[in-house]
């Protein structure tokens, strides 16, 4: 087991009824890299990521996280191993402020007269520090999330994941619902996180996003791995051809 890989998936297969969603798929995520995962609709991208996050149990295959074999029965197992997944339909609370969102489920509390009070001040201060550290452009942790743009909400979700000590981020089409400017800001944040040592898998339809900030890009087609390209010496045409024609293109 090489220590260079924070995630290794070996021979993952998954069948839904008559459809072979994944067929003997391998995936390696290097420490501190941003790996793009691309492919047409129904290529198996989301299923593969759900397998890694424990919300889909594979029929066959093994997953190693930080070099150790991981039995992921549910998302909590994955979270306990430092994984976080950010979906395009967000699990943020629009009616709460940023601080409460960053700390959902692990709020700072203090007890007084047997009643559990929320330690708002500490959550505000610490979430502000987290936003600053991640260089997320949100002016105050006291802002209500409902007053924010889609991109800022994604960033709150990212901050929450990082706040939970996630070292491996899975981002499933995070820019799909965003405008160009918003998407670019989010991509900048992802590059920033990668530079801070977080390993990221970016599932996307926008190949140009991966080519702009990614290190490598992996292509799936029909539930099978077609190849992995280095972003540095690949063009948009290379990736598109691999998506459309599959591994045959590489020969």
């Amino acid at each position, binding site marked *: 087991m090489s220590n260079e890989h924070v995630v290794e998936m070996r021979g993952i297969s998954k069948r839904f009824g008559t459809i072979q969603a994944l067929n003997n798929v391998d995936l390696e995520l290097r420490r501190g890299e941003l790996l793009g995962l691309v492919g047409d609709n129904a290529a198996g991208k989301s299923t593969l990521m759900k397998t890694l996050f424990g919300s889909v149990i594979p029929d066959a295959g093994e997953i190693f996280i930080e070099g150790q074999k991981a039995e992921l029965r549910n998302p909590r197992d994955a979270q306990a191993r430092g994984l976080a997944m950010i979906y395009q339909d967000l*699990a943020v*609370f629009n*009616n*709460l402020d940023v601080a409460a969102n960053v700390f959902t*489920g692990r*709020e700072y*509390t203090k007890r007084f007269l047997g009643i*559990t*009070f*929320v330690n708002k001040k500490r959550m505000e201060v610490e979430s502000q520090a987290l936003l600053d550290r991640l260089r997320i452009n949100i002016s105050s942790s006291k802002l209500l999330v409902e007053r924010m743009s889609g991109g800022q909400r994604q960033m709150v979700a990212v901050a929450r994941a990082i706040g939970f000590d996630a070292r491996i981020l899975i981002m499933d089409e995070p820019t799909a619902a965003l405008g160009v400017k918003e998407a670019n800001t989010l991509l900048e944040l992802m590059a920033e996180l990668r530079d801070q040592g977080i390993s990221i898998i970016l599932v996307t339809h926008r190949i140009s996003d991966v080519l702009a900030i990614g290190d490598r890009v992996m292509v799936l087609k029909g539930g099978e791995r077609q190849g992995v390209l280095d972003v540095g010496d690949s063009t948009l045409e290379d990736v598109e051809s691999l998506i459309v024609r599959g591994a045959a293109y590489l020969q």
Partner: protein
Amino acid sequence: MTATPTSSPRGETARTRIRELLSYRESGVFLALVIFFVIMYTVSPIFRSPFNLTTILRQISVTSIMAMGQTLVIVSGSFDLSQASIAGLAAMVTARLWKIYGLAPPFAIAGGLGVGILCGFLNGMLAARFRLHPIVMTLATGAVFLGVNFYITRGESIVGLPVGLVFLGQGRIFGIPALVVLMFIVAILMHIMLTRTLFGLRVRMIGGNLKASQDMGMNVERIRIGIFTLSGFLSALGGIVLLGRVGSAVPQIGQGLLFPVVTAAIVGGTLLTGGVGSMAGTLIGAAIMGITRNSLVVLQMSIYLQDIVQGALVVVALLVDQFRRGELTWRIILGLDR
């Protein structure tokens, strides 16, 4: 630091403060309340008499106490339509515990409150454990609670209640009507609970995004049960206060409270879709409704206008609610957008 000609730092902070104040959800309804109050205060000498102002406060107390519970329920994304029936049942049980079973007033009151807690817990179980839709479910349990009330009382009233039972409704604490004091105590405690405690945060979370709450592993069921139980308790408290105000126990007591209670919460800015609402807003909502009713009386308008005006007020509140959520715009009203 040199002051710029356009705005001094001081003017700047003052402006931010004002903007901050206006950003509070309650500021709109509060402004409406103040304007309404000032107009009535100016035009009607009867309205501004201390006696009348106290009367308004006394009249809104029971509604407010129960509406605090309703606010909690609505913020969590549910409704409790059984509140008035719980109030009535608790009041009658309290009176009967004293009259028939000879319990001292404090114990009789404790018994009445216990009945409210039990009814609320039952609602909570049916909503959370059995996953019944709260609107129809509480409408049904409300009918059951009212039926139990009539069944055990056989429709008979109890008169001549002792001081201990009417104190909450008629007594005074430091010269202030006891029920007004109680209303503010309940308001402060409920405000702290909703805004400062972990339970209050959980209530706002399940009302704001139920799915995310479940996904993060929150015990939604237990919180739901807690919410309905508290609503039952506050309904019973309202019923017992009302018992004291009326001075005798008639089985119909509490009937007709549902509408003012729900409307106080809605006029006060509680979002019907859950997640957003405040005790201060509900208090303001109850006050607007109370002043409306009182104005019709002191201006010697037909009392039959009351329902029309109150109903219309609620429709206005619902419209404002829709606007705030962005579900409604002028373009939609004018038929330009669909």
